[in-house]
């Protein structure tokens, strides 16, 4: 177990926590923020696995563009999830 392995396992655990948080939150804006954070963690994981191309694509599309699309969609509908 080197330090890199520990960091990667920690990143994956945080990624799963971000995914659970995105499903669990009732506030849809918070859910989108959790998805963006998970996407950023995934980009860092790609960088650690020596794939910087995929890391830039993931950070650009997953963390920025998808978040913007979701925020625009929430702005045009409702913010709270209903039962």
């Amino acid at each position, binding site marked *: 177990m080197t330090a890199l392995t520990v960091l990667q396992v920690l990143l994956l655990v945080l990624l799963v926590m971000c995914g659970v948080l995105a499903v669990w939150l009732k506030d849809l804006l918070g859910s989108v923020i959790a998805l963006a954070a998970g996407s950023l963690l995934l980009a860092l994981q790609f960088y650690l696995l020596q794939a*910087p*191309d995929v*890391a*830039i*694509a993931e950070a*650009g*599309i997953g963390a*920025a*563009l998808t978040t*913007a*699309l979701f*925020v*625009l*969609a929430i*702005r*045009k509908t409702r913010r709270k999830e209903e039962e």
Partner: protein
Amino acid sequence: MSVVVRTVARLLLAPVAIFGAYVVMHGHLTPGGGFQGGAVIASAIALVVVAFGAQRLRKQKKTLSVLEDVGATAFAVLAFLGIGVTFFYNALAGTGGLFGQTVPIGPNPGALNTGGLLPLMNWAVGLKVLAGLGSMVLLLGLLGGDDDR
């Protein structure tokens, strides 16, 4: 959007766009390329749409459409340049002209004037991706008229 979002967007807009242009320009030397750089520049457009409202960019729909057409056409034309050998043959590599400098074999720091058709194709794909993703975000922002809050 609030004052905080607008101020941070004003600060971040130029660095994000410049970094995207850098990623596209140095696609044949550093990690990244047309698709990634275009996505980064499109995220700058998304920043404007989210922070300042889509109405501010309403006139730019035509510009983005023209940019998309230019990118797609340039990519196809550059692919046809090497049709004497095969489709997608790199006709400019190693000829000494534009982007035609040869690289030494093995690890080297790299020069900007290498790669043949690759930098031009990076620019074409970058323009295409920037216009495509940007116009998608812009159209969704314009949906339903002006409701910036």
